[in-house]
């Protein structure tokens, strides 16, 4: 069993209506699969994804304990 934390930020947080949640899966899966299990809407095309605060692509496979974050393009500075 693998348990992961999901986080959403900024406009994506508002769209999904949640900022943080925990999921448990019986087998490892990619971050895009994680999104599909957790959300009815499709993953918006320009979404950025980070696992444990490092950028990953959407086929990256999660491990037990990972923090997976989804967010729109960054606009700091």
């Amino acid at each position, binding site marked *: 069993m693998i348990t992961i934390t999901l986080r959403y930020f900024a*406009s994506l947080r508002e769209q999904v209506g949640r900022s943080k949640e925990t999921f448990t899966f019986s087998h490892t899966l990619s971050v895009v699969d994680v999104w599909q299990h957790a959300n009815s809407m499709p993953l918006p095309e320009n979404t950025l994804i*980070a696992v444990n605060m490092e950028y990953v692509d959407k086929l990256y496979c999660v491990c037990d304990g990972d923090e997976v974050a989804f967010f729109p*393009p*960054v*606009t*700091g*500075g």
Partner: protein
Amino acid sequence: MTIRIVETVFDPFLEIQHFQTQLALNGKCGATSIFIGTMRDFNDGDDVRAMTLEHYDGMTQKQLAKIIATAKEKWAILDELIIHRIGDILPNEPIVVISVWAMHRAEAFEACRYIMEELKSHAPFWKREILTSNESRWVLKNTSGKN
């Protein structure tokens, strides 16, 4: 290297001056390049009254440290300071300060600009603007830093 995420208005000049007095540059620093990003009262053709800056605490610091580490691999620089605001911001207030100390000017200029461009494209900050009409909206993407 110092990275600070701050929630209240700050004076960029006092901050840099204070940081610099703590550096042991001792005659080695010939060049300092500084960038200050300030909140404007307009964007995309609309008048902006205020802004709220959200960030991903932890990832912000990790990404900024990585950007500085890469800059240090690319250029001979002596020290670096990044300060970035979060929370509620008003026009004319500083949003970001980057300061790079180096022996020579080319390194200072290039590393400072590199850090700023990387921050704009990789550091997890998001701006939400409040227009003078009281409508609010997320900024969708940063403008390019190229001319």
